[in-house]
């Protein structure tokens, strides 16, 4: 008898569901990919339905009903979170009355009745007998820890989690061994590394819970040798946050508003401290905001490194697993790796709250149901290709409805044409097989282009993605070629680590470049891979091996055969403000609305400026 467990993460941001069968994640999906609402927080009805139908079928069990599952596990404990809300309101009173009324309304009207919400949500996905349902609740950071450790390749490891806030915990250190996870340290609300980074994000004019990537991407535009970065960092550490040697953080609440108000920061106090006002959303990216981003990044890296050192001291392990939103800060995670505190590092590809669904399911399997665990030589995330896949009939139906011309070709013709177009400097949409799990497109729902073209970053940012010109793109490189292009040459299959372009591949910046605005510095070639080399010669690398994603590996190999370069610019297949595409309809819509030159869905090719609609050839 198989043990089938559904994990659910929802009602805060990035709702998701994951199905585990006998301790193996067979299906996992984000709700936003179906509803097309970025960071969708609602009950993941579509993701649950897909888990039950497609996940069940993949496991050879057929479509599952919720009552056929051994358990449904929610990724956090709502009552414990509510306790935190009440006690925080009490601690900050009389400040924060307005925020408390708003939160209390949401809780009294909805979240307090979580069991009912979950049962109703499941009923919308598939009919079932509610009396037979086993509903469990994991702790938020235990879910993160489980999502980082259980699928990892390690038999034992130190586990570090850090994010905005869970119930009370905002992060923790755990020890994972075999099938068990032991909590060793906990960082409690309101002192949170994730909330600190979100506060910087907010002050720099980006949106909390989604703009953190932008702040990280902005950091290299700061001047590391300049006096202002040093001064901002000194002020941050003197006034805003105390970093403990053990990795703990203590945030001076006089400067923050999230405990009692509706904003992250007390803007007037921050402005008085830093000497410049908060940046307006979409306002100019003045040098002081770039310097703030760099100082914030340096403080975050320092905190995470100290946390990792403490985890190494407490566990004595040489393996580290990371999860929680802060783990998605690839510069900080890479800094931990660079420090050499641990020999090996593994990150959950969906390290944010969505990943809690995987952790909740696997945690219940090993901890609640006491099932043994055997770590393999590689991780058990199936290359993070765990989402929905579409049949040829579904692709043809979507293509027919779109009115676009297309043709179906053999694999040989498909890879040959895609590689040739890329070598010609064209930008293509690449939609193959199962959708990715996690925030990164890993070659199944990707926009691809030639990374050697110096104008490509600006072109893809402005004409296709329609996002800020300063934002960097990531390279996908043949795993066997990584060391030929990058210094570390390590494995980074989920695009969660930074590596530096090799010295012999770099080009010096022309004098005076540092004084230019971020948008003007983008077009300057810094290496043989200018479209994916950030200002500090780093790149958020994806190493592609033939086993995890054979089709993407074949495309990269085809491109290399034509150009001698086994590297492509790989960015998520979407436009700004939209989730990554999921279905063929989404891909076709995005293709038509952007400057993409061609689209490849499975074995179907769509070209711009094509002959009249219908199937050709």
């Amino acid at each position: 008898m198989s043990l089938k467990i559904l994990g659910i993460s929802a009602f805060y941001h990035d709702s998701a569901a994951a199905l585990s069968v006998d301790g193996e994640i067979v299906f996992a999906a984000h709700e936003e990919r179906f509803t097309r609402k970025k960071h969708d927080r609602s009950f993941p009805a579509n993701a649950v339905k897909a888990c039950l139908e497609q996940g069940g079928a993949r496991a050879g069990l057929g479509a599952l009903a919720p009552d056929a599952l051994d358990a449904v596990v929610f990724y956090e404990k709502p009552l414990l979170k509510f306790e935190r809300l009440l006690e925080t309101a009490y601690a900050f009173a009389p400040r924060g009355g307005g925020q408390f009324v708003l939160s209390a309304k949401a809780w009294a009207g909805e979240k307090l009745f979580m069991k009912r919400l979950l049962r109703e949500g499941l009923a919308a996905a598939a009919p079932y007998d509610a009396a037979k349902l086993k509903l469990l609740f994991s702790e938020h950071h235990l879910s993160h820890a489980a999502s980082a450790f259980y699928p990892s390749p390690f038999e034992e490891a130190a586990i570090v989690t850090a994010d905005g806030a869970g119930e009370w915990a905002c992060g923790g250190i755990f020890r994972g061994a075999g099938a068990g996870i032991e909590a060793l340290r906990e960082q409690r609300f309101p002192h949170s590394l994730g909330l600190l980074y979100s506060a910087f994000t907010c002050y720099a004019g980006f949106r909390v819970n989604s703009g953190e990537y932008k702040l990280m991407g902005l950091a290299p535009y700061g001047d590391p040798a300049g006096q202002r970065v040093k001064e901002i960092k000194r002020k941050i550490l003197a006034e805003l946050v105390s970093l403990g040697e053990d990795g703990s953080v203590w945030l001076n609440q006089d400067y923050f508003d999230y405990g009692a108000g509706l904003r992250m920061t007390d803007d007037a106090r921050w402005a008085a401290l830093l000497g410049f006002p908060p940046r307006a959303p979409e306002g100019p990216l003045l040098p002081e905001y770039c310097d703030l981003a760099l100082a914030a990044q340096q403080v975050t890296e320092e905190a995470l490194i100290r946390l990792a050192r403490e985890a190494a001291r407490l566990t004595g392990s040489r393996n580290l697993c990371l999860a929680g939103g802060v783990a998605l800060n690839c510069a900080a995670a890479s800094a931990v790796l660079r420090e050499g505190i641990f020999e090996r590092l593994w990150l959950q590809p969906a390290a944010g709250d969505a990943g809690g669904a995987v952790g909740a399911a696997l945690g219940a399997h090993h901890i609640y149901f006491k099932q043994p665990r055997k770590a393999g030589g590689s991780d058990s995330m199936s290359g993070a290709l765990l989402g929905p896949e579409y049949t040829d009939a579904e692709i043809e139906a979507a293509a027919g409805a779109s009115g676009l011309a297309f043709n179906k070709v053999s694999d040989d013709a498909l890879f040959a044409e895609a590689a040739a177009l890329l070598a010609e400097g064209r930008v293509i949409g690449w939609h193959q097989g199962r959708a990715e799990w996690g925030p990164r497109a890993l070659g199944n729902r990707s926009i691809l282009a030639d990374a050697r073209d110096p104008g490509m970053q600006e072109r893809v940012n402005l004409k296709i993605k329609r996002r800020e010109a300063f934002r960097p793109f990531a390279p996908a490189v043949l795993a066997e070629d990584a060391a030929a292009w990058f210094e570390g040459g390590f494995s980074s299959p989920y695009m969660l680590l930074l590596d530096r372009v090799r010295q012999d591949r770099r080009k010096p910046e022309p004098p005076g470049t540092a004084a230019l605005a971020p948008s003007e510095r983008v077009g300057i070639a810094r290496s043989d891979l200018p479209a994916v080399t950030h200002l500090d010669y780093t790149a958020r690398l994806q190493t592609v091996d033939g086993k995890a994603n054979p089709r993407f590996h074949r495309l990269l190999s085809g491109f290399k055969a034509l150009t001698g370069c086994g590297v492509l610019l790989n960015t998520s297949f979407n436009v700004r403000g939209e989730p990554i595409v999921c279905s063929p309809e989404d891909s076709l819509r995005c293709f038509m609305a952007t400057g993409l030159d061609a689209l490849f869905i499975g074995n179907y090719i769509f070209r711009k400026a094509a002959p009249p609609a219908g199937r050709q050839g």
Partner: protein
Amino acid sequence: MEFLRDMLLFLKERKKWWLLPVILALLAAGALLLLSGGAAVTPFVYTLF
């Protein structure tokens, strides 16, 4: 009923009985606000607050 049972078990487990009056007051206010959508209760809402 299930919610009340869960809440009481939670407060017992966490030894946080002092939260009970706050929770009951919140639920009463929440119920009143929900009901205030109906015309019959609306006149009393302004009197009470």
